[in-house]
């Protein structure tokens, strides 16, 4: 399995940071691009593993899923639900504007 060395560009870092909703300074963009490249280069070690016929393991151990009965349990009081909000207004969370 031969692989060309993959490089992440500063522009890609900008786009990914936008997706992740993290504002970056110019310095951070430069530093992260450099660090990401050395980390990703290290990660490339897994490219040498042949995995064509291997199934992915989402969980490490075998688990059995369970569903819940459709029975109502008490909710939090409104005060408690809103207690940690940055801004609130008449029983609503106040979030920044959409446009």
């Amino acid at each position: 399995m031969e692989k060309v060395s993959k490089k992440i560009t500063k522009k890609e870092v900008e786009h990914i940071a936008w997706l992740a909703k993290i504002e970056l300074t110019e310095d951070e963009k430069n530093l992260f691009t450099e660090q990401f490249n050395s980390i990703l280069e290290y990660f490339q070690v897994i490219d040498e593993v042949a995995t064509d016929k291997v199934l992915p393991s989402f969980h490490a151990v075998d688990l059995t899923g369970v569903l819940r009965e459709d029975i109502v349990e008490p909710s939090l009081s409104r005060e408690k639900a809103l207690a940690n909000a940055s801004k609130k207004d008449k029983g609503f969370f106040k979030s920044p504007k959409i446009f």
Partner: protein
Amino acid sequence: MQTLPKRIKGFSNRLKSFEVNHMKKPHSLSAKEIIEKVRGGELKAEDCVLSIFNRIEEVEGRIHAYVTLTKELALQKARKIDAKVKNGEVLGRLPGVCIALKDNLCTEGILTSCSSRILDGFIPPYNATVVNLLLKEDAIIIGKTNMDEFAMGSSTETSYFGATKNPWDSSRVPGGSSGGSAAAVSAEEAVLALGSDTGGSVRCPASFCSIVGLKPTYGLVSRYGLIAYANSLDQIGPLSRNVYDCALLLNVLASYDPKDNTSIRVPSQDYTQFLVDDISDLKIGIPKEFFGEGIDERVSKIIWESIYTLEKLGATYEELSLPTLRYTLATYYLIAMSEASSNLARYDGIRYGYSIDYDSKNWNEVYSKNRRIGFGSEVKRRIILGTYALSTGYYEEYYLKALKVRTLIRDDFNKAFKKFDVLVGPTMPIPPFKIGEKITDPLSLYLTDLLTVPVNLIGSPAISVPCGFVDDMPIGMQIISPALREDLLLKVAHIHEQNNKFKDYAPKL
């Protein structure tokens, strides 16, 4: 005993108090002793709390293990326990035992920060399942401990509140990410503590602080209320100064929880019953890779000495190779970062946590600024890299590939477990390092997780037990078993402990 280093801080001091047990202050007692004394009316829970807080006052300035202390609540709880004793009421299984909680466990009414600015002021409206279990058993919660921000790190240096110091040498790291919990237990600022282990975060600081740290089987302990870093790898684990106390705490923690879909339904059991002195049938596997490239030779030497001791006690050992270990770090980091990028998306500053003032600002701008200011560098790095690994065009190449390699790693271990009861090696490849030594080079810090991440990938339990010292710095031995064989781990750890004196050394503070 000839292998023990000559100069161990606090050794003579500790030995003296060991001889006159009844003279020990409550904070120095084991959980087992406290439970017996509180039950017997010899010791008041309130005195345990007061003793612990005296100790905290004495040494915390040099350790910085805690981010929040809850003395009043602890005293209230202690008085309730004392009243129960007085009235002859039934006591829980951990009466009077003072426990520190890693600050990524939700505690109702008590600040919970993950040592991150982004959770500024966050007071959970509920308790983590483990917290309720502890309270039900009359344990006393004394505070919340410092950690690497969102459990991302192996040194507790990425905390927004500053680094925790290693009680054995304050210029060194205590390990991470549960560094505060381990340091608190090691420095006798807590009798027991809870940590969480995603890639070694309980075992690493246990090793660096010369205490016992267990990562249970994935699913054995409920994660409900544990603030997620990487949810397919995270597991809550106990930290203690001896193996018996570890088993006592696990007795309470291991409990099926319908609120956690990944919780395993196993009958509750008394893990202390497995602490017997017979390992004559035990087959130990020694993975060559645990002693290979990147492992400090002095560390290897110390671990080997303990293996020889186990052999003398009747166990057999054999070396083996786990070829996929070469891929575990990359696999672990790809999976952990991917999961983290999604788990940490919820921190936007609206429902809880840090936010800039956002009147008439657009949501996109507000979220991006809150997350820039609220998260530290390491967290940002992992979120962004994780986002990258899941994004279109890279999902298969990185995330899915890592999950496939994970399957191969698991197969590799399963093969080994067909032949061996447990696998043994070092917990950390190197002794505790200096604060600031590695923090500027993320990759070099990642490399220290080399030996701890495999079990998180395969879901197995592992324990780190004190195993000696290199240049006065603690070294931990790691024992790994198949899933749900905590009994084996505890047994081997117990025998190792009984035949060495490492647990009797305390840091000189």
